């Protein structure tokens, strides 16, 4: 087995981890990060708006994501569908994503498209609200309802996504509904909602722009000033806050679905983004279920053959995170047997803690994950923007990774006891009807 990998060795092996970044801020509040890399003949921009589903109003769940779709419906100088046609004609592609905390938009293409990308983003940040119409809203409402069908309703066990947030967080907490929202709320969204949301959240002081790739830093900053400098200063919106939610006892939810096999999902509230506790939970998730050496895989999938697959993850969020374990049963195995085996492994972890070798391996995996996230322009820019949100102007990859460097078997044991306790939500999903279609097929 390889010796533990100190962070210093990692940094000497992967100079790319120390990404050179130039930071700047326009008078209107837009944060700008430029990370030049002359080895790839491409450029990406990642524009992050600090607004997510946590900022939605009651009765309008799913709105932040619906709005993200509307950002592609055309503005004054780049009317629909030219954002996409201009981009793809030049060889560029784009996408966007919405989470609980943020909405980010990226474009990537040959480096001669940098000015074009900035021009199109500036146009929509200035004029999208004025150019919004009921027709545009209806077009994307249909698309998003279809997205909801494709990604949740037509996916086995997809309904877990609807029940987990309100079980984990109290009513009114910004994480108590799912990012995709409810169909009823998506249908209720109005043109006025769109304009008000845009005016509140899509302002330079609530945004952070990363440019990565084959650019000259000075030229890139000049282009940003040209295309974003004239945007008026607008008040930064109020940041979402919430007192930390707590779960003192177990909540159990039983569902049925059109599925063959039982499944159990167990979720706990866990430490927020940027903390040592968040890093500790990453390592615990790895030790529990990453790869074929992990404890739950060995126990549930391989040794006892109770599960078809098992996963664990620390889902990092800004205000409070969620630690989740899920296991899909084998045919003929019920949720009770899965839960019993998971609980035994958790007890052992809380009692004895992980081994030093397990901690070292989990840490080595995290370090190479980071190196991989820095390889492509798109993921590098996204990572840098997320670090900026978490740590502010002192953000570096090293600072992010240093959180892991001091973790020990004893500290992870302590985190396991603090986080993976009796206060949790357990969702059990069983087939709607016991079919023996496995036999019926043949």
């Amino acid at each position, binding site marked *: 087995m390889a010796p533990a990998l100190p962070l210093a060795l990692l940094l000497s092996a992967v100079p790319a981890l120390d990404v050179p970044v130039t930071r700047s801020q326009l008078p209107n509040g837009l944060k700008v990060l430029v990370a030049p890399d002359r080895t790839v003949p491409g450029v990406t921009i990642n524009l992050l708006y600090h607004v997510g589903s946590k900022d939605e109003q009651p009765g309008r769940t799913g709105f932040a994501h619906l709005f993200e779709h509307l950002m592609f419906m055309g503005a004054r100088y780049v009317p629909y569908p030219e954002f996409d046609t201009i981009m793809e004609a030049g060889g560029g592609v784009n996408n966007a994503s919405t989470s609980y905390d943020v909405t980010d938009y990226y474009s990537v293409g040959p480096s001669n498209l940098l000015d074009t990308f900035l021009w199109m983003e500036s146009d929509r940040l200035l004029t999208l609200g004025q150019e919004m119409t009921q027709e545009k809203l209806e077009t994307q409402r249909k698309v998003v309802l279809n997205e909801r069908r494709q990604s949740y309703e037509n996916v086995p066990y997809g309904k877990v996504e609807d029940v987990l947030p309100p079980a984990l967080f109290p009513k009114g907490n910004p994480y108590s509904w799912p990012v995709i929202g409810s169909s009823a709320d998506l249908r209720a969204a109005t043109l006025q909602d769109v304009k008000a949301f845009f005016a509140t959240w899509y302002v330079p002081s609530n945004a952070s722009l990363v440019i990565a790739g084959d650019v000259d830093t000075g030229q890139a900053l000049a282009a940003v000033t040209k295309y974003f400098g004239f945007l008026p200063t607008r008040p930064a919106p109020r940041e979402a806050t919430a007192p930390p939610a707590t779960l003192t006892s177990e909540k159990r939810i039983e569902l049925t679905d059109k599925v063959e096999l039982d499944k159990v999902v167990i979720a706990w509230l866990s430490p927020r983004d940027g903390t040592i506790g968040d890093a500790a939970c990453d390592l615990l998730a790895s030790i529990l279920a990453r790869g074929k050496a992990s404890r739950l895989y060995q126990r549930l999938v391989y040794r006892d053959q109770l599960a078809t697959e098992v996963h664990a993850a620390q889902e990092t969020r800004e205000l409070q995170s969620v630690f989740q374990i899920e296991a899909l049963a084998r045919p003929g195995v019920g949720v009770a047997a899965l839960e019993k085996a998971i609980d035994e492994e958790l007890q052992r972890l809380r009692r004895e803690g992980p081994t030093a070798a397990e901690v070292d391996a989990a840490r080595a995996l995290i370090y*190479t994950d980071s190196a991989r996230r820095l390889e492509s322009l798109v993921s590098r820019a996204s990572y840098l923007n997320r670090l900026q949100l978490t740590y502010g102007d002192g953000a570096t990859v090293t600072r992010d990774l240093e959180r892991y460097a001091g973790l020990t078997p004893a500290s992870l044991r302590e985190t396991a006891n603090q986080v993976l306790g009796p206060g949790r939500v357990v969702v059990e999903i069983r087939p709607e009807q016991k079919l023996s279609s496995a036999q019926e097929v043949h």
Partner: protein
Amino acid sequence: MRPLALLAAGVLVAACDFAPPKPDLNPPLPPSKPAAATPGKSAALPGEDVLAHRPGIPPLGAFDAPVPSVLTLPTGLKLYVVHRPSAGLEALAFISRQGTAADPPGKEGLASLAASMLQAGSAGKSQAEIAAAADALGANLAVRAGPDALTIGLSALAPRLPEMAALLADVALRPNLAPDDWRKIQAQRLAELTANLSQPRVAAQAAFLAAVYGNGPLGHLPPGTLASVKGLGLRDVKAFLATLSPGDSAIVAVGGVAPDAVRSAVERAFGAWKGSGQRAPRRRTEAPPARRPRFVLVDYPTKPQSVLVVGQPAVPRSSPDVLALELANAVVGGSFTSRLNQNLREKNGYSYGAGSFFAFGRGPGPFEARTSVQTDVTGKAVTEVFGELQRLVAEPLSAEELEKGKALLAFGLVEALQSVDATTQAVGELFVFDLPLDEYRTFVPRLRELTSSAVQDAVRRVLDPAKMTLAIAGDAQAVVPQLSAESTLGLPAPQMRNAEGQPAGRTKPVVTAGGASGRSQTTQRR
């Protein structure tokens, strides 16, 4: 998210530098909705003078895609190396040209199970010990069986290369193949296949392949079926693995390690491997059946969407038409502004997204157009999909579409060659498909030469919507009357298939089933 899987599903699409600058991009662009036209709004917005001028797109230099160096060891094993001095990572892969297309009839899933057995313990160490050794290196060890090759790959920090090579050799060459592990792997595969029964997406693909290729080499999904996997034994896996030989295998290394150091690490780990001397079975080369069902359906009552696949067998990777077909695909279904996506998502609102791909291989892999649509518009959506495919055959691409396709494929190569893992896969395809070493470097010059009529000629040689097969996984009761009503399609009544794509016969159609879904905390545009 944009259906990237559709783009990536075939061989590497893409190329290496950029379309020539377009002459018409520089003049100021009049706003197509001038401020004056908006009542009650002042014409003077801040920055209007800036925004009213569309930026120019300056010319770009060429991108020199890597050309790997190749070395053949005395045993016949090939070593492909791409050195990237600035990369902190190194990726290493063992590739052998035996894949799922070689699974004998009735033994579907064999290559894929052999791949799983390679990860079930090696060199006397248990599955957990091997996996822990990879974890300790920070390496992402994975074994994959595709139609034409078995690939074992991993990447980690570059200084770990010697340990990575030793671990890779243990996994590739010295699997334990213990009976107890075999029973567990087989049982796990049966459970995964059971879970897949409730995935309409998987069922639609299984039904499509079985309808189009019958019992031929490409007629099944790599994991096999419940019946075929039950019938396989450890003896089959051993026989399969014994056919791997150095003369039909390669090592690919990409990253920060200098070629000499790669060579010595690989020679130390693999130099002594001679194989069993057993001859590989003759490759299966049966042509797809000439008569194929036009319409197959897997019934999932009450589902809110229908999963659609429309397509036919295309051509092997060796065909001279491949580049032209990739270009046509970028326009019809391989991009966000593609005809299929614009029609089904943006214009008609039937779907979250629609796309298409060619899966070129050693055999004539399929062309497929795919989408998921609301159940109540399934008939109309199928008509639109066929309409777009008919138009692709009937009319040449416009000049704008041709240039867009070239630009997208050119930058696609830059993106595909960014990470060491992706580059390893791209270089591996040079070996698997016997492509020239400078395949990627010559891509853009070859792309530039393509004309609209050359693309249309290739499309017409290969695609014929009148011979395409439609596979649907969805609510039969709701969908069948809709399709009968779409008279222009001229489709017959559907052949019913079960969730594994096999003729359902008189058995009651499978109702549904389950499978673990990746959860996502983010919700994306595409």
